């Protein structure tokens, strides 16, 4: 039983998405990749729980449902 939230949970979802795009605007591909990688790590640290993280990796791989 995991606590990974897969139902809608993001506040102000359009604002968040726009902010994410804006953060990447004007970046070279390499810098964008680096930004994404840093973001994943920051969020992973916020989550912390290894079970949730494993489930999140699996969910992102679209391997499970």
């Amino acid at each position, binding site marked *: 039983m995991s606590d990974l939230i897969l139902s809608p949970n993001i506040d102000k979802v359009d604002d968040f998405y726009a902010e994410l795009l804006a953060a990447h605007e004007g970046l070279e591909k390499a810098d964008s*990749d*680096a930004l994404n990688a840093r973001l994943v*790590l920051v969020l992973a640290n916020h989550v912390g729980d290894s079970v949730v993280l494993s489930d999140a990796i699996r969910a992102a791989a679209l391997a499970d449902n």
Partner: protein
Amino acid sequence: MNKIFETPLYGYERSPDQDSPTPVRRKVIVIGAGPVGLAAAIDLAQHGVEVVVLDENDKVSFGSRAICFSQRTLEIADRLGCGHRLVDKGVLWDRGKVFFDDRQVYDFNLQPDEGYANPAFINLQQYHFEDYFVQRVRELQAEGAPIEIRGRNKVDAIGTHQDHVRLEVETPEGPYTVEAEWLIACDGATSPTRRMLGIDFEGRVFEDNFLIADVIMDADFPSERWFWFDPPFNRGQSALLHKQPDNVWRIDLQLGWDIDKEREKRPENVIPRLKAMLGDDVEFQLEWVSIYTFQCRRMESFCKGRVLFAGDSAHQVSPFGARGANSGLQDTDNLCWKLKLVLDGKAPESLLDSYNTERVQGADENIQKSSRSTDFITPKSEMSRVLRDAVLDLSEQYEFARPLVNSGRLSQPCTYDGSSLNSADALDGPAETRPGSACPDAPLGDEFLLPKLAGKFTLLTIDADAPDTLEEDGVEVTRLALSVKDDLTLALKRRYLGDATSAVYLIRPDQHVAARRDSYEENSFRHAIRRACGKE
């Protein structure tokens, strides 16, 4: 050149075995007087088992080798009577810096964990380590222990038989034949024993070259561990600097696998790199420069009839995390008490199968940990490099990312989870002392716990009753009765009780937990003793 490399430590002497008309049969022969062979021999001799060590050489190991020895190694060395020598001479350090590209990303100060007799690790040249272990052999000999080292005795051929092994040994005065009931092959990474028995060395995980330089610096250069990821002076690779005793610093430069070794070793190529690392104004002298190739692999099985493999002969890892000698000492720690019981007829030969399973587990853990360090240090794909660089960039500003930085993890003793020698956990106690774990130390007034658990089966009771001694099928167990009332630092409670109010632990001669419950129950502990000796 350092004199210690040239002085024979165990010069050749003629043995009566060379003049015997029929081959003499020894109890145990150890091939190799490296750190692992010496540890095996001392351990067996302390158990009263006759042991002969054969080494083709007569000196300490040559050049730059191991420098970082872990707490568990120091604890084992304590049991072997040489721990204090190592700690007295070794360098303790707790500060370090991490560099990425052309800048320092952070520095750290490892807070020592309280309540252990030994530090988390020390830095010490392998030749000092070997020298101290040979001194211990001499001490045991003076006490009349049945231990002997034969220098310049090169094993040339091995014949294996049902109940013994036959060795052809080459000496400066010609060959002789000697037999052993058991042979322990501690003959290093290129193990001639392995080759002579035609055994494959399985599973090469990766290969890498390192330029290892030991430099002498008189200036008061700080006693810190410095690690560089992808520095300008060694692009795409790593570099490491740390301190050894006698003003010697170790420098490891990773070179990758496809390199021209002779070229890289030339002083005109080495010195500019070192200056780029240390700063132009730092004066240094080269003590030693060599290039090593490392691989990660292990034998499929560490036991082959009457031949037992330990140390580098059985497994090899890359140098990240200092696991070679450290894991080799855990091998012999695991093996010797078992061999003693088998030799005494107190345990079946099959007990030695558990040496194989437990130490293969240890080797796999070490290979996994050093492979993970390697994957971080030398990313294998574009995205793994992106993620690695992201960790390093974040670590400059945010503390959270620093634990992700993997420049080699400290060697920790293996917990033998799932071993057939363990009994089911019957205590609601801390995970760190579950069956299979190496006992953590704890202060007991002016003394410490581990020396009281050395070399024999112990029933450790904490606020619980139990008989003072117990014998099960020839195996003796002695009680060590402790109470949290005397546990001023609460380390004993924290490490052995957790939420429980009392506990009884059955502890193996190698200080690993075999069984635990909240109280003494004769029947279950008798079973646990039998299990721990491979009888169930």
